């Protein structure tokens, strides 16, 4: 009692306490404001950088979603095309004949070659495709839009400047005049670039697409998800709920934490040594890529899942055990459902990492130049980030915009994945 008197005093002592509180109040609020300002500015700063990044990528890349096309009138000479063997016909010759008709004044051999290069080398394949689908047109003259060469495309998009001296331009004045003539006659236009979304890689920018890499990424991630999520969750559940604490489990825990910090290229080397050299799995395959990325993402998933399991209050476990649930029932009926949102978050972080990973995939040959769209887990393929890396490395100006476009696709992939994760989390999360 004498003690409390000394602290509070009596009557006016209470007033004094209030005075002390009030005196410190201004300082406390100031500190609080400062803290809030710091947080706010950090968020604004990061948002600014993020938008800067997005703006620069979109500004660089949006043109890739358009492609310049050239209209050609091609006479499908019945004598040139063998109806029994459509593939053997000289479609390139037909295209060239058509171009010659469009520009009849070009006589010199060198100029002719330049003229032929107005359209993409892919034009003859397009024509062949058209003929195969429309046999009845053989003998007629048809109108077909074929992709323009990437230089023409760049010119149309303003990336080749007309005002620089001819010697420093990729296209000379004569080529410009041909393009002008096409523009005047309405035989050239920019259309939505479907090729970019449907084709695999190509040496020709106008024929290159992201679909091959997207498929590769998809197959790789499927393998990664199917392996790493169940294994990771099972490992976490075992370590957290069932394993005894002893030197072995300590050792395992330390090693898992260490693995999370191992540079990803090391996993690539491991994959090369184990999966390719020892198990002789196919090179450049999404299967192997998925295995390597599984090794890489497992520690992330295990650590996140264990944290999620740890955060389930012990009283829930006691409640379940108290009514006579077995340990497994306790885990599957009560602990796992509560931990699942956290586990999903960890998995998504791991998958996002895996989606953006390049280094370990280089080691197992997924960096190869692959034109075909992969149709399965063992087909050679590449993945989105590697495709971006390959295009960023290419000298053609047209690949520059495609690099940015591919980055946009990668980001879209990521955003979709995150959105799915958020939805799943919402679905599983119990807010009570």
């Amino acid at each position, binding site marked *: 009692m004498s003690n409390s008197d000394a602290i509070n005093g009596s009557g006016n002592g209470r007033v004094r306490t209030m005075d002390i509180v009030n005196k410190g109040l201004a300082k406390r609020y100031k500190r609080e404001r400062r803290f809030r300002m710091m947080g706010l500015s950090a968020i604004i700063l990061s948002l600014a950088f993020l938008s800067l990044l997005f703006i620069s990528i979109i500004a660089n890349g949006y043109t890739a979603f358009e492609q310049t096309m050239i209209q050609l009138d091609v006479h499908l000479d019945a004598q040139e095309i063998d109806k029994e063997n459509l593939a053997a016909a000289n479609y390139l010759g037909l295209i060239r004949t058509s171009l010659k008709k469009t520009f009849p004044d070009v006589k010199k051999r060198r100029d002719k070659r330049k003229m032929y290069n107005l359209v993409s080398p892919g034009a003859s394949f397009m024509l062949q495709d058209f003929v195969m689908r429309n046999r009845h047109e053989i003998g007629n003259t048809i109108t077909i839009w074929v992709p323009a060469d990437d230089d023409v495309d760049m010119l149309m998009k303003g990336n080749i400047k007309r005002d620089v001296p001819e010697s420093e331009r990729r296209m000379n004045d004569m080529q410009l005049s041909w393009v002008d003539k096409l523009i005047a006659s309405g035989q050239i236009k920019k259309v939505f670039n479907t090729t970019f979304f449907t084709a695999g890689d190509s040496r020709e920018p106008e024929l290159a697409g992201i679909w091959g890499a997207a498929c590769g990424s998809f197959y790789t991630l499927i393998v990664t998800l199917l392996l790493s999520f169940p294994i990771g969750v099972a490992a976490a559940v075992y370590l957290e709920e069932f394993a005894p*604490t002893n030197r072995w489990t300590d050792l395992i825990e330390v090693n898992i934490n260490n693995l999370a910090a191992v540079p990803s290229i090391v996993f690539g080397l491991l994959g090369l040594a184990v999966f390719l050299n020892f198990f002789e799995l196919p090179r450049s395959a999404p299967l192997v890529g998925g295995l390597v990325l599984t090794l890489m993402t497992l520690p992330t998933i295990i650590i996140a899942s264990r944290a999620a399991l740890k955060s389930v*209050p*012990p*009283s*829930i*476990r*006691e*409640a*379940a*055990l*108290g*009514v*006579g*649930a*077995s340990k497994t*029932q306790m885990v599957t*009926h*009560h602990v796992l459902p*509560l931990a699942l949102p956290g586990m999903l978050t960890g998995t998504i972080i791991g998958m996002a990492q895996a989606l953006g990973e390049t280094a370990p995939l280089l080691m197992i040959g997924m960096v190869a130049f692959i034109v075909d769209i992969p149709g399965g887990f063992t087909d050679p393929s590449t993945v989105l980030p590697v495709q971006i890396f390959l295009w960023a490395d290419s000298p053609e100006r047209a690949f520059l915009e495609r690099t940015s476009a591919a980055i946009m696709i990668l980001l879209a992939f990521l955003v979709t994945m995150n959105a799915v994760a958020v939805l799943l989390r919402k679905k599983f999360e*119990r807010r*009570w």
Partner: protein
Amino acid sequence: MQMTAAEQTAEQAEADMKQEEATPEETVKKSGKRKLVAREERATVGEMAVENPRMSCRNVDVYYNFGEKKAINNISLDIGRNEVIAMIGPSGCGKSTFLRCLNRMNDTIEGCQVKGEISMDGKNIYDKDVDVVPLRAQVGMVFQKPNPFPKSIYENIAYGPKIHGLVQNRDETDELVENSLKRAGLWNEVKDRLDQPGTGLSGGQQQRLCIARTIAVNPEIILMDEPCSALDPIATAIIEDLIDELKQEYTIAIVTHSMQQASRVSQRTAYFHLGDLIEIGPTDQIFLNPLHQLTEDYITGRFG
């Protein structure tokens, strides 16, 4: 020496207690008409054994943190059939710890070790071949902190019976849920919102939900750790009636901080003090004529 103690007057005994110092010759002394065992004595006084016990504990020691901390010290105690035994004692004296030994709930605490023998119907429940799942179905527990599942009220009650296969279909489950909630005195408050989360109930409602959940499994022995700590007098009365009703068939061990409750519901009372079982005996005797000085201090509110 004993003669000197006997000659002491009641006033002198009071004065001694305030001084809180005792000489060995005061081990047994007279306070008023009664002889009280001195505070320093830690051996259990009173009759701990009963005939044909339901559960029987012998020389139980409990350690926490891998033996670092001893929470229970050499406790021997029988729990009879169809009796309500109350456990009282100051906070931190080991009541919950002891109660949790009886259905091996302490197994879940890492580093908790139980020594000695605890048997149920003559079978040591700490034997290697004992399966804790049926044990816990048989020995139900209401925890000190209400811990409803983060599921609906209905699911909270139905979970136990479902996993044990006590109910076959929806109708049976509905009936059991309703019945359990009614017995715990919660039905009227929740009957319109059985699909709502059990964790959204008030503290007292959660406590009754947990009681309903425990009795839904129909255990033979029920361990209740302060089941009424958050309840108003009306709800408390409902629970006490429930205990009265349950004891016809079952055995109940209840921890309580309310002396009145202990005297109302229990036949025998055990007084714990810092890990020791100080006194055990018929409830009337404990509250009217305690044998141990510590018990007397506690029930008269003189405990410091």
